[in-house]
């Protein structure tokens, strides 16, 4: 994305953000609560329309496309939200919904759902109602729903924020594996610096709607000279 601005009423939430992520790269966007991370991801996933700026996918500017073409690009992306969003249906139906939206054949839907259910370790729950899952299971379901779509770009908005360590590491491992195996672009927001260190290829710090520092994980955490970054990291990680 290039020079993206977004306001809600009088409040400027995103202020001229330019961000680039490459194939096979896991980009971690860190920042405190209210810094604009979720809004930025929603803009990238075309759920919010920016006031100005450009969004590119494979060199194509998305905001200028008509609705039908834009949907084709949206279908090459997927997003997992911070809080699991579940449909009033079984685990199987919750995962297959995106595939049904894309009009895939029944056998292909079955194959993909079965595969991702095994990956997220929810196969035995396939016929249970989604509302009966625990928080960690529900978040794994949401990740499975996104992975079943085999997206080229995967957005994850603090997906591990409310999870116990076991579920947190399981999701991190699946995301990292998906990124490497599929050469996908993964953009992951978090305010957990250790998580960013574990996962990221590239890290960006969003403060008050602006990217104030960006770089490889090594440079970001050890060689930054930016005072804002040092303040955010609290000093300990830069030592």
């Amino acid at each position, binding site marked *: 994305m290039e020079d993206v601005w977004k306001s809600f009423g009088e409040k400027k939430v995103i202020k001229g953000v330019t961000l680039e992520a490459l194939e096979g790269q896991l980009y971690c966007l860190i920042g405190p609560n209210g810094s604009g991370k979720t809004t930025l991801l929603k803009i990238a996933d075309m759920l919010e329309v920016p006031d100005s700026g450009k969004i590119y996918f494979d060199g194509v500017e998305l905001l200028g496309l008509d609705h039908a073409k834009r949907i084709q690009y949206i279908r090459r992306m997927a997003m997992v939200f911070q809080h699991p969003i579940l449909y009033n249906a079984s685990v199987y139906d919750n995962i297959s919904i995106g595939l049904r*939206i894309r009009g895939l054949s029944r056998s292909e839907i079955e194959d993909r759902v079965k595969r991702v259910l095994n990956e997220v370790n929810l196969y035995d729950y396939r016929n249970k*109602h989604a509302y009966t899952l625990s928080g960690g299971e529900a978040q794994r379901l949401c990740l499975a*729903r996104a992975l079943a779509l085999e997206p080229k770009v995967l957005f994850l908005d603090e997906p591990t924020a409310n999870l116990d360590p076991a579920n947190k590491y399981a999701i991190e491992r699946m995301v990292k594996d998906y990124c490497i195996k599929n050469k996908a672009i993964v953009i992951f927001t978090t305010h957990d610096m250790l998580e960013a260190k574990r996962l990221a290829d590239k890290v960006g710090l969003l403060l008050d709607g602006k990217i104030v520092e960006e770089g490889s994980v090594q440079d970001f955490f050890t060689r930054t000279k930016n005072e804002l970054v040092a303040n955010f990291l609290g000093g300990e990680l830069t030592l």
Partner: protein
Amino acid sequence: MSQKSALIFLDSEILGITLLSFQVSCTAVLLASIFALPIGTVLGLKDFRGKQVILTLVNTLMGLPPVVVGLILYLLLSNMGPLGPLSLLYTPTAMILAQFVLAVPIIVGLTYSAIADVSEKIVEQTLSLGATKRQLILIMFKEARMGILTSIIAAFGRAVSEVGAIMIVGGNIRYFTRTLTTAIVLYTSMGEFETAIVLGTILLITSFTINLFLTYLQTRYRPDKGKRFKVMRFGD
């Protein structure tokens, strides 16, 4: 049950009255659903100028007195009225029309409420999955299905128990426009309480059977059917 009561149950005239009652009410509710569900859905999904006024109007019409509906329709359908040439007065079609008018606001109002209650996050998630507008509406319908079926059940209840409007526009004509409710009024006024009670019983039993089916549809997808379930909506 006395022998007379048993004979009333089996009477072909009573059977005809019962069939007509449910034919009229089912047709009216079916047509009202086709007409009102899209309106309720649009009201639930879209924000526009004047929506508040429309919702207030719908809520007011939900409590519309049947006799007022009957009177207005009578004036419209009578020979002097604008729809007089259609010769619909004192026909089952006029009774369907009356019940349709009473059912529409109920279905619109309750469908709006059911759709508006679906979390905004579900809309966002569905759009993020790449849904078209049509697919989004279908998914919203599915999410709101319990509320939507409630609206249909409520509308059917209102239609089948209605008497004032259909008495005015149907005329309670024997073998033609006499329904269970109008017949109950007639037999009660004639002092034939046993017949009236039997008709009331038939009305209750058949209503119960139809509602049993609708309730089955309403609850069949509930998680852990049969157990008390606390709805858990993450992120709301």
